[in-house]
Structures are given as C-alpha cells and as structure tokens.
C-alpha cells in the first residue's frame, strides 16, 4: 500500500536506527542518521508543546542540518513547509508569507530577517533522543510543501504538494530503473525553493544513503566538481545548465565513482550530455527526467542509451510516464492527437497537485476534467508541447508559449536554437521574441564572445526559411541563471526591452 505514513515516515524512522551511518555532509561536516533524528526530535517537541494553529509554516531555506531536520519534523507532525530563500529579497519572501498568511517561521539563521513573526530558532534547540511514535491519523490530502514559482503576471504563484503526491512520487521513483542503495553518496545541488531538491534529499534518506549539499556562498559548479572527485559521489541530479558551465573544464574533472546521473529541470541537448558522459563520468548511466512542479518533481523517465539516443532537434527524448502517471497529448479542443502529432501534454494521477494556493482563476485555466475510457479524470495542462513515437516515447518540443506565429507562419523557437547550436556546438543559444512596432521579431542570444554574426546568419539561411532568421543577434559571455540553475530567460528578455 502506498501512503505517506508507510512509504515515507516509517521508512525514515527505520533509517534512524542505522545510527552510525552518515546522512548528510554539509560544508565538510558529517551528520549521522542518529544526529539527524535528534535534531528532528528537538523540533518535533517544540511543535508538540505549542501546536501551530496553521498547517503550513515558513522555513528559511538555509544550507544546514537544522533546515533539513525541520522539513522532516514538520512532515512527521503533519505540517507543510513553505521555503523562504535566505538570499532572495526580503520583499519577495514577505510577499509569499503574506499570500499564505504565515504566522510562524522556522529559522536556523543566527539573526533572523523575520522580526514581525513568531520565529522558532531551531539552532538554539538541544538534541533530543528520537521517539518513533507519531500521529498516524493525518489525512493524505494534507500538504507537505507549497513552492512558489514565478508567475507570468509578476506575482509568484504557490503550488500545493500533498502527502499523497509525495508518496506517489517516491513509489514511482523507486520503480524506475535507477536503484539507490545505502552505500550511495548523493549530490543535492538544488535550492530548497526548487522541487528537485526534494528528490535530492528525500530519496537518498529513504534508502539510507549520504547526501552532499552545496553551501550558499560557494560557486556551485566548481564546488560540485570538488564534491564529485573528493567525496566520490555516486549519484546526483543536475540541470544541463550546470553541466554547460562545467564544459570548459571537462578536462579537469574525472570520476569513475559516479554511477547514475539524472539530467532534469530543462531540455537536455544530446551533444553536451554525451560529452559530459564520455569525458567526465564514463562509468555512469545517464537518465533524462522530466516533470513540472505541479506534477511533483518528475513524471517521465528516459534511460539514455550509449548509442541511438532518441532526440528531437538535438534535445533528448523525455521518455515514458512514471508508474501511476497518465499522459495525454491533446489538441486545442483537448482531444487526443494521433501518434506522431504534436499537442499539449496533459498529466493525471496521484502525483498531480490539488491546485494553486488561493488562485481559483489559475486553477480553472490549468486543470480540466476529461472522460477517459468511461471514467472522469482530472488533468493538469502542462503548457508543454510534445509528441509520441511508436514505442510510446515522448518527445519534448518546447513551451506552448514559445511557439509563435510570425506573418501566419508557425515558428518553434527550439528549432532555430537547434540550428544555431550546430554552428556554435560549444555554446548555448536562446531565441526570444520581441514586439516592435506591432510586429514580432526574433532575438537570438548566444553564449559566446562577441563576433561578427554574418557567417552565422548565412549558415541559418541555408536551412531555415527567411521568416525564421533572427532579426537581432546578441552575444553574451555568460548567460544569467535563475535560482533553479536554469537559463534565466526573464533576465535575457529585459536586455531587449
């Protein structure tokens, strides 16, 4: 049976028994499962003594043992966390607190930024021996976390993830080809405000493995390289953007211990990923995992073979649905399209969020109920364009909103980017649109030193119709990244406004 108590909490409690095994390595300090459990218990007792009247609490997402212990203590006691990034502007964090009407914040910082809240200073609590009994009556629809992602309206929107969602995810993750073991040393290189972080700490803990985190004051990709070599990392999920930052240094990084690497969070270009595999982590099996926050971390998986990797425009296929996830590819009328035809991906199953925080307008737009084989099913509309092949593999084509029409021609920006990458195989390329004098123009960004764009344009003209040739070309030495480690397209967009 799959439910949060059995799949998550009981498993964790069982791991706390392997007291001397290492659970975390944070800033070069190791914490055993026993130490972790004592920090958890200290926070549980505070929650038990003064039960919060609200089911969700703010959590300052520091990189330390008390922050991770807070998450697990909240889950065991039946509460949800709302991560507040310590390096994000306080105004944005306060806006999130206001949206969820948050009264209590767990904070392990030496000095808290939240003066007008009830702050539980977790770093001041004394260790307590772990008590395995807990309240088993908590509803599966209670929340585990609310993550705020940037909304197109400018105001962040909150995605609610329930106990049922997390249990379904953990169960499905373990049914994929990737099997974690207690001997694994696992990377956690994502901010806690991004959901891949939940996979990166939760799955290793459920299997009794050790998690290696990145201190906030470090240069992520350089520190990750250090961890991979010095601590002989065996498993980790990474964003292709981070791999791209490592690319100029591939000859300086080599690991035979890395056995399984998940690429996720954005489209995975084949050439980059193959170079990463061959030059740096030759013993590893690589996987491409896809999933929007609304469908709990990942919901499709593809084991990348050594040869004959399936791609579309140089982007690796996202594979087949996770166990328990139902995928439909539909046209504008929400009618399923034929195999091979492009449509929007809809997702259904226990991993799908119950909706956005206090946002009925968005809920109505994002979720629909369809009758499938005589049954009513609720689907999340991802806004991602995909098609499937005869084997049932799903190919990612791009965001619905990156498909633009210029002079009546339907243009997929990913296709232009693909051809630019052929000209600049070492560089990242992003095409954005810009409205100028009521016409839509194509603006191309290339991560490369400044040079004359004419040879590139000539090259593009050989393969692309005139209406797909970028009207503006900008060279940037480094692309800006957002907090999730993805190319920050909003920042790029500002450059052309």
């Amino acid at each position, binding site marked *: 049976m799959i439910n949060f108590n059995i799949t998550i909490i009981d498993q964790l409690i069982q791991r706390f028994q392997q007291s001397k095994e290492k659970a975390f390595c944070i800033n070069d300090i190791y914490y055993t499962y026993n130490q972790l459990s004592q920090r958890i218990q200290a926070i549980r007792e505070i929650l038990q003594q003064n039960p919060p009247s609200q089911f969700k609490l703010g959590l300052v997402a520091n990189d330390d043992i008390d922050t991770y212990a807070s998450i697990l203590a909240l889950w065991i006691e039946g509460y949800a966390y709302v991560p507040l990034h310590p390096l994000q502007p306080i105004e944005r964090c306060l806006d999130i607190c206001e949206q969820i009407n948050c009264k209590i914040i767990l904070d392990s910082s030496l000095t808290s930024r939240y003066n007008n809240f009830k702050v539980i200073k977790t770093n001041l609590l004394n260790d307590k021996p772990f008590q395995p009994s807990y309240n088993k009556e908590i509803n599966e629809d209670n929340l585990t976390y609310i993550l705020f992602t940037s909304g197109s309206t400018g105001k962040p929107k909150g995605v609610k993830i329930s106990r049922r969602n997390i249990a379904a995810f953990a169960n499905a993750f373990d049914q994929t080809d990737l099997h974690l073991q207690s001997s694994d040393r696992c990377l956690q290189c994502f901010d806690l405000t991004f959901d891949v972080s939940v996979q990166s700490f939760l799955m290793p803990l459920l299997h009794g493995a050790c998690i290696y985190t990145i201190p*906030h*004051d470090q*240069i*992520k*990709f350089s520190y990750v*390289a250090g961890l991979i070599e010095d601590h002989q990392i065996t498993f980790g999920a990474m964003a292709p953007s981070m791999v791209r930052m490592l690319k100029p240094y591939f000859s300086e990084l080599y690991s035979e211990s890395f056995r399984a690497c998940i690429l996720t969070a954005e489209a995975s270009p084949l050439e980059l990923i193959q170079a990463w595999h061959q030059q740096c982590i030759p013993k590893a099996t690589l996987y491409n995992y896809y999933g929007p926050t609304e469908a709990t971390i990942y919901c499709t998986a593809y084991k990348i073979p050594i040869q004959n990797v399936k791609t579309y425009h140089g982007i690796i296929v996202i594979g087949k649905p996770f166990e328990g996830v139902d995928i439909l590819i539909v046209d504008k009328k929400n009618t399923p399209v034929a195999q091979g035809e492009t449509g929007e991906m809809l997702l259904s199953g226990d991993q799908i969020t119950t909706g956005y925080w206090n946002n009925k307008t968005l809920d109505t737009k994002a979720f629909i109920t369809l009758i499938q084989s005589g049954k009513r099913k609720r689907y999340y509309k991802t806004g991602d364009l995909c098609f499937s092949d005869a084997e049932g593999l799903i190919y990612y084509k791009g965001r619905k909103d990156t498909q633009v029409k210029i002079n009546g021609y339907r243009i997929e920006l990913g296709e232009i980017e693909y051809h630019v990458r052929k000209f600049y195989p070492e560089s990242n390329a992003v095409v954005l649109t810009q409205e100028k004098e009521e016409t839509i123009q194509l603006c191309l960004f290339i991560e490369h030193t400044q040079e004359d764009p004419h040879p590139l344009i000539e090259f593009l003209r050989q393969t692309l119709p005139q209406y797909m040739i970028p009207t503006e070309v900008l060279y940037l030495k480094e692309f800006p990244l957002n907090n999730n480690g993805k190319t920050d397209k909003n920042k790029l967009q500002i450059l052309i406004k």
Partner: protein
Amino acid sequence: MVKQTKTSYKSSLSKNNMERESIIKKLQSIIAKVVKLENVKLTEESTANDVKGWDSLSHIAIIAQIEESFDIKFKLRELAKLKKVGSIIDLIIKKQN
C-alpha cells in the same frame, strides 16, 4: 651583508604591495562594471557579501572579466578559492608569473 638582504626584502615587499594595490584598483572597476554600481571599495579582506549585487550569478561574470583583463585562465578547482579579494589577488599574481 645581513642589512643588505633586509633592504632588498623590504623593497620587494613594497613592490609587491604596489602590485597588489594596482590589482585591487583594477578589480574594483571590473566588479563595479559587472554589478552596475558607480564605484566599489574593496580591501584584501572583502568578500562577495560586502558588495551589493555580487552574488553567485554575477560571480561567474566577474571571474570571466578578471580572466579577460589579466589575460589568465583559472582552473575549475581554483574557482572555489576565489571568495576573498586577497585570495583572488594571490592567484592573479601566481598566474601572471
């Protein structure tokens, strides 16, 4: 003899200090340009936390600018050491020699 050694040590020390001073000045203008501040005041002890806008994102652009203007290339593992202005200067001097 002993005296002479001391003097030459002293003069090389002051030459060294001058070199560090001029590197700091160059770093100030590089960082100011990247984080879009009018001017940035740095000491050997300054870290990213002391400069508004010097975060993990701009750090990469700052490093790229330093590499370009000093015509040096940092190694991957060296990037992790570039957190304090003093250590940035140490590495620049080491790389230039």
